[in-house]
């Protein structure tokens, strides 16, 4: 049922060698091909539109959900709506991700729209990896949307990674945080060739003592373009910290347009943004340890995007 290409994509995006343990849903070329629920995690097909509902019972601890998407057909435009309901006090790992193998001429596109409700005191770690391959000329396009609502004391960690292979991506992430909720977003992006990547983030700190940290690291190589629009809005006593750090190379272009806005005297919001090339001293140091210039560059980028 899973061929060699599928398995390779699964391994890259979800670190899976085969069918995962625990709850999972594997979607291939626009249809679900394999699914498993567990006693605490129920996965069911949406009735009104394509996609799934993932319902995690309150108090579920230490379980994981894998929902990889693989696309190996060209000319496909797959739009999917997934909803995650993470019950009170639960603590789970959700591994999503999309791998596209496009060896044709037509484009292959996947737009995943993910809605999360993280209920009181629940914790979730959400990992989303994007990967594209295939030597056809067909474009590989991914436009993910992640919409979160964090209730009182909820904690969410989003890890979003896209290293090479995706021609065009427009990412949108939106979150509303309740009292004492915390959201950590780490984003890592590498573009090359003529790729284009845009990331918009809107975080609204609504509840008292809610807090967020956004760490974005990106590398733009060759003729690629990147645009970042991180926004944090504080409506209460809250803390927000956004760090955008980019390495620019070759003829690439990077724009970072941050916004922090405070609507409360006790809102503490910080934004740091930096774009620059690899420091010459770093290359020299690694070369003086015996690496070639190319190896030194690779080591610096790997560390930066780790």
């Amino acid at each position, binding site marked *: 049922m899973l061929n060699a290409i599928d398995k390779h994509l699964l391994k890259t995006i979800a670190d899976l060698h085969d069918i995962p343990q625990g709850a999972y849903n594997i979607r291939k070329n626009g249809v679900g091909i394999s699914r498993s629920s567990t006693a605490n995690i129920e996965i069911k097909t949406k009735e009104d539109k394509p996609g799934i509902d993932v319902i995690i019972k309150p108090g579920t601890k230490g379980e994981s959900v894998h929902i990889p998407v693989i696309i190996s057909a060209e000319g496909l435009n797959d739009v999917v709506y997934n909803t995650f309901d993470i019950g009170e006090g639960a603590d789970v790992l959700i591994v999503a991700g999309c791998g596209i193998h496009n060896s044709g001429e037509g484009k292959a596109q996947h737009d995943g729209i993910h809605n999360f409700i993280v209920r009181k005191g629940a914790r979730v770690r959400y990992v989303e990896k994007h990967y594209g391959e295939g030597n056809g000329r067909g474009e590989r396009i991914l436009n993910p949307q992640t919409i979160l609502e964090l209730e009182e004391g909820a904690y969410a960690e989003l890890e979003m990674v896209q290293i090479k292979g995706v021609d065009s991506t427009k990412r949108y992430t939106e979150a509303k945080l309740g009292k004492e909720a915390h959201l950590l977003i780490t984003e890592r992006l590498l573009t090359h060739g003529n790729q284009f990547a845009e990331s918009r983030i809107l975080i609204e700190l609504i509840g008292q003592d809610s807090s967020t940290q956004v760490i974005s690291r990106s590398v733009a190589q060759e003729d690629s373009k990147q645009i970042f629009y991180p926004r944090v809005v504080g409506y209460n006593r809250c803390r927000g910290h956004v760090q955008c750090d980019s390495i620019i190379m070759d003829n690439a272009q990077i724009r970072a347009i941050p916004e922090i806005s405070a609507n409360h005297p006790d809102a503490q919001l910080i934004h740091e943004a930096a774009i620059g090339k690899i420091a010459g001293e770093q290359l*020299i140091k690694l070369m003086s340890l015996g*690496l070639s210039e190319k190896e030194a560059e690779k080591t610096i980028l790997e*560390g930066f995007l780790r």
Partner: protein
Amino acid sequence: MLEIKDLSLNVEGEKGSVEILHNINLTLEDNKFYVFTGPNGGGKSSLAKVIMGIYKPTQGKIFFNGRDITDLDITERAHLGIGYAFQQPPRFKGLTVEKLLQISAGNNKVVDCCNYLYDVGLCVQDYVGREVDNSLSGGELKRIEIATLLARDLKVAIYDEPEAGIDLWSFSKLIETFRNVHARQHGITIIISHQERILNLADEIILLADGTIKQQGSREYMLPLLLGDIERICPRDRMERGEDSVECNR
């Protein structure tokens, strides 16, 4: 053996080309411990960088065990066993201490990070997983920089002001480490330093000022000159400020 012959270095500054090193002639022998010393801006780091291949000399040649290495690049010199610990080491976001030491030791060797960190007085558990980024203090970064040289099999090891930022308590341990490493490696050790306790380690001391070698000789010959006769290095008639305008530690 490292031989530097008629070496000059010009760099392009804001006001055109400036000469930083002038007509340097120097022979450094295996198994010997050298200390380069001299006033700030005298050319010590620049000479070290020329040996490492970071700066290309404008004139002159460098021979390593009889081979002309003047045109070799940094990587090639590293492969010959030349190493340089920076005066101001760069920081790397995301690169761990362990990874950096692994690179230093060469990727094929099983690295014994623990010993090198111990040698520079850092607790292994606390540091192997840390990133070599802004979170490290100045002294910690210097110690890790020294460890990157200890991890290698070097024929020429150059440490640029290794004691800078290292606290008093660790200083003796560091001195001990340099002594041991030098004895182990059978190569040339060069330390750039202003510290008497490091000058005391030297077989030979080389005094650099204004981009030239002002004086050189055995420790026994040089130390009294350096410590006693500051006048010779900074003649009073050329001094624009009185001694009381600065804090003199010696």
